[in-house]
């Protein structure tokens, strides 16, 4: 091999034809994710079944004893406990986004997509959006079961839609976390493990009684947990009416969570697709 003294590399300045706009890329890839989710219904049923199971158990075991809750004067226990089920359904649903992504990473399809001129952002957002669709449907099913158990929302249909919107926002934010775990580990087991963070997140809150009735370390944990504010906002909508301050706190909590988790997800994506 003779040494190359002057570089023979001359490069084009013009770009090859055919560019696909980012929204279009995201649509195509989100659709692909939804197709694969529809083909693995076995991954969808357990989270929704568990949410409904707990809802029925809470309602039948705690519902009759709920009279001691002073805050519930006028409100119903189902309106109080349903948000917990909605939140756990949407956090569990967020795991679906990560499961899809980790499957792509481990079977090599993710690399195949990296070889196309597709935007890296689309690769991240598509599974999250597909996850949002799924967890929206799951939260809606839980709410429907709530109606069967006697839910009578104080704010009517608009309030129920607001609850659903909060659930989707919360779940999509949390999906940022599970997706980070998928990108970081590339392993299905690790991703599944990381998704279980939703357990402490859901239960170190004002889960069963209002925040004011909590004491000690649990109260501190609940105060720091963004989920608490989401639960309070949902409860206010279902039992009390349009409490704008509770609603604003709930929205702020989901947005803070989402921003933090998306920063983490983009970092994980950078590491995964780093070419070094």
């Amino acid at each position: 091999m003779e040494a190359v003294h002057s570089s023979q590399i001359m490069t084009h300045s013009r770009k090859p034809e055919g560019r696909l706009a980012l929204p279009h890329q995201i649509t195509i890839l989100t659709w692909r994710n939804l197709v694969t989710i529809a083909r693995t219904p076995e991954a969808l049923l357990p989270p929704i079944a568990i949410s409904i199971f707990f809802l029925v158990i809470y309602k039948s075991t705690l519902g009759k004893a709920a009279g001691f809750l002073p805050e519930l004067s006028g409100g119903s226990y189902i309106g109080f406990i349903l948000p917990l089920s909605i939140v756990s359904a949407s956090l569990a649903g967020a795991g679906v986004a990560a499961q899809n992504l980790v499957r792509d990473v481990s079977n090599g399809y993710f690399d195949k997509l990296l070889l196309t001129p597709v935007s890296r952002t689309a690769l991240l957002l598509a599974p999250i959006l597909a996850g949002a669709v799924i967890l929206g449907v799951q939260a809606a099913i839980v709410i429907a079961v709530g109606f069967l158990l006697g839910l009578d929302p104080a704010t009517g249909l608009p309030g129920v839609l607001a609850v659903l919107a909060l659930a989707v926002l919360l779940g999509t934010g949390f999906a940022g976390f599970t997706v980070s775990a998928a990108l970081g580990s590339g392993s299905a087991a690790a991703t599944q493990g990381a998704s279980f963070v939703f357990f402490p997140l859901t239960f170190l809150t004002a889960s069963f009684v209002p925040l004011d009735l909590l004491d000690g370390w649990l109260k501190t944990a609940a105060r720091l947990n963004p989920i608490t504010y989401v639960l309070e906002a949902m409860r206010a909508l279902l039992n009390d009416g349009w409490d704008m301050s509770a609603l604003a706190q709930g929205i702020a909590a989901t947005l803070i969570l989402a921003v933090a988790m998306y920063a983490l997800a983009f970092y994980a994506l950078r590491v995964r697709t780093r070419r070094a």
Partner: protein
Amino acid sequence: MSEREIVVESIVKKYPEVTAVDHVSFKVKAGEIFGFLGPNGAGKSTLVSILTTLRLPSAGRASVGGYDVVTQANEVRRIAGVALQEIGLDPLMRSMELLTIQGQLFGASRNDARRRAEELLDLVRLRDAADRRVGKYSGGMRRRLDLALALVHNPQVLFLDEPTTGLDPASRRDVWTEVRRLNRDLGMTIFLTTQYLEEADELADRIAIIDQGKLVAEGTPGDLKARVGGESINLVFADGSAAEKAAQRLDDMAERIQRDREMVRLYMPGAAGAVASVVRRLEDTQLEPLTLTLSQPTLDDVFLQVTGQRFAKEQPARSAV
């Protein structure tokens, strides 16, 4: 300019533990099949991942089709088709769906992407399996689908990283036929890595041999073998005395001559080209050989000479190709 060419200049890829690619330079001309040959772990896949923009080199420059693999990665992705050694297919999807999505991501409309997908399914003979999930495909079918996916955007340059590793001999032959056809009919430049000597020999117009990250030889298979020497014309005569007379008569033509009873072996570079003059010389003397055969050195001999060791302990059975 440098349409369909690959230029590699002093590319280095260092990892904390090893230097996987060590100052490798070569050029692949437009429209040729270039075989990149080396034993397992020699650095072939690392180089492919650099040329296909999945990894950055530690040093050096490379361009594919006139686009820099570091600074113009998206442009390289547009004109290069890549079938990696690890087949990347989603088992839940159908081949028609995967091909259509891939086409759309390269900028084709849904209808154009569909039409192209159908063409490609015919090309790789998967039309009948188009609506079955990829998870149900055999290894050979997956490999063919992976090749089709690499072709959706009519690439100018096609990278095939060990396209036949793990395939049975019949499927391997199919891939060879396909590669030749793509090269001949579409003028596609093909960069192919392989750990099979006979695959490089069979398919490639030119070959580079890599060992422990370093390029150790480059040239056409014929040139490389000729450089090793050991090419010979073998003549068998009716008896030993005819052979001895022939050997004396031909003595000045060969670098080295060897007689073993009724057989005469003439060692010379360019043996094939010398057959006519050997035959003519023998006609003058009325010594007619019963058989005339040519012996070529193999790429294994080339590898032995440049690295001091045999290529690999286990090679698939040398089939008479």
